[in-house]
């Protein structure tokens, strides 16, 4: 499939959680010794919580932290290889909740302990995912500490954002041809905490495809692009009249993984984004 990368971003985006049932797995106090992670954001959280040594299998997309790349690969998260997972003899599998996955029911049917986290669509839900992973790997305390640290940094970002002389409008393009985010997305929330305003925050959806003329009509001051390069925006018919394009205010070089993975690293992404926004509004 051509859009594997797109699919990757999509699945990790904050989205409407199809199921919102908290997992009811009982976990030993000492944590698990053989963990398999089926999603990059969960791998990152587990490493951050110090459970990296217990992880025995990850997806081919789990590239951060670098130690994760040394772990056994069990396929990508769209087509994980169930035989590989089982062969690693895990005592815990962490996965993002995904109703149509045939893997998770199969693993559970074989008596393997699977913890499914929700797909976060707000910062609050990201905190929840971190706590869930923390509980699952037996490091609830460190998870709580990580969340508190994040909340502190987010508060600082928010205070700084409020002090912006003005709050510019932003169009966030997460995928071609014109997929963007709505209010029910942590990216939109992050943008507004940083001191800007997502031009599509009136739409109560995590992600939506908009027509390009609507973008022209809403005339954003700044464009944040995850996929298309700066020059591509100049080539789009009619887009030269958009303020962001006219004034060269297109941010296309941020690490999309920081902003889209939906875990503790979002704060790093937010701080970088805020610095860029601040440079624009204070000039």
């Amino acid at each position, binding site marked *: 499939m051509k859009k594997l990368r797109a699919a990757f971003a999509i699945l990790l985006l904050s989205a409407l959680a199809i199921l919102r049932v908290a997992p009811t797995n009982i976990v030993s106090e000492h944590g698990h010794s053989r963990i398999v992670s089926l999603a990059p954001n969960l791998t990152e959280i587990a490493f951050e919580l110090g459970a990296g040594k217990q992880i025995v299998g990850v997806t081919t997309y789990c590239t951060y932290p670098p130690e994760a790349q040394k772990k056994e690969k069990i*396929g990508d998260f769209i087509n994980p290889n169930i035989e590989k997972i089982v*062969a690693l003899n895990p005592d815990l599998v962490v996965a993002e909740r995904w109703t149509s996955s045939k893997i998770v029911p199969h693993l559970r*049917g074989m008596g393997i302990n699977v913890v499914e986290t929700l*797909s976060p669509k707000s910062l609050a839900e990201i905190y929840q995912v971190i706590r869930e992973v923390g509980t699952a790997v037996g490091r609830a305390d460190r998870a709580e500490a990580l969340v508190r640290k994040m909340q502190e940094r987010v508060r600082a970002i928010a205070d700084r954002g409020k002090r912006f002389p003005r709050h510019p409008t932003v169009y966030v393009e997460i995928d071609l041809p014109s997929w963007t985010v709505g209010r029910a997305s942590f990216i939109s929330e992050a943008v507004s905490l940083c001191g800007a305003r997502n031009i599509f925050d009136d739409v109560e959806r995590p992600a939506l495809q908009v027509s390009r003329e609507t973008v022209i009509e809403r005339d954003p001051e700044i464009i944040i692009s995850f996929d298309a390069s700066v020059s591509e925006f100049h080539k789009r018919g009619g887009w030269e009249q958009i303020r962001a394009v006219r004034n060269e205010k297109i941010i296309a070089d941020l690490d999309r993984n920081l902003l889209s993975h939906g875990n503790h690293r979002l704060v790093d992404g937010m701080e970088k984004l805020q610095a860029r926004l601040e440079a624009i509004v204070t000039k």
Partner: protein
Amino acid sequence: MSTSLRRYSLLWLGLLTLASAAVALFVGPVRPATSTIIWEIRLPRVLLGVLVGSGLAGAGAVFQGALRNPLADPFILGTSSAAATGVMIAGLLTISHYSALYFMSLGFALLSIAVVYRIARIDGKTPIQTIVLAGVIVSLFFNAAVYLFFSIFYRESFTVLFYLLGTLTEGNRTLIAISGSIICACFGICWSFSRELDALTQGEETAFHLGIGVETVKKILFVAASAMVAAAVSVAGMIGFIGLIVPHMMRMIVGADHRVLIPASAFGGALFLVLADALARTIAAPLEIPVGALTALIGSPYFVYLLRRTQKIGEF
């Protein structure tokens, strides 16, 4: 007569299928495989491959005979698009239970058969052309519904997409059993109508003059064959081209007699799918390729070849 020779080819095909199933148990990305992997993962998979492969190929043989078209595909009546719509609606209603997806897709696929038949019925008769036309219209409609859904919903659409990407990774034995029973029962019905199918290939008027109650027989055959497809799609997603290629190839080997062709197609379909799946889980390990994509990849060039061949006959 030549029937004894044909019976032997059935025997050979049966043995070959059995052998490939046995081999497939030992083929996979994990080597050597533990007994858990062989019995709990590969066995249900091989079993499902046999069921789905034989169901699709058997249904293909029936469709090709009844529609008097050696290039007919069992998805021709829109069964798979309807199954997709069922999964999509389950997603929309945020029905979260996994088996709900299965029952929604099975239900919609079965429902679509009734819809196609209702549309195709004119003055108590269902001419072949109107059946095909009704099938095309129904699949266009359901496809449009699915595309609309894709374009509006972002993440949820993956529920549909990945549910429908053909794969045999189904671990729920109850669902396998339900689909399996439907496939076996409908297969038996179709097989018992082999003579009627033979007669139908000679044209509906001729079939009538050979003593066949054409309308009743067509209804039974289309419903039974579509139900097989529905059962296969809802448990394993879209696995293309097996229903098209396998019966066609088998016709070259064992001839057109449906009493031999239908079981031969079933064996051929099972053989093909079980081996394709073994390939799909090994070839790009640790990645697993959806087997539906793999079968279509092998099948498409063959389809082109078939088309060119028939065009040559047409020129004659």
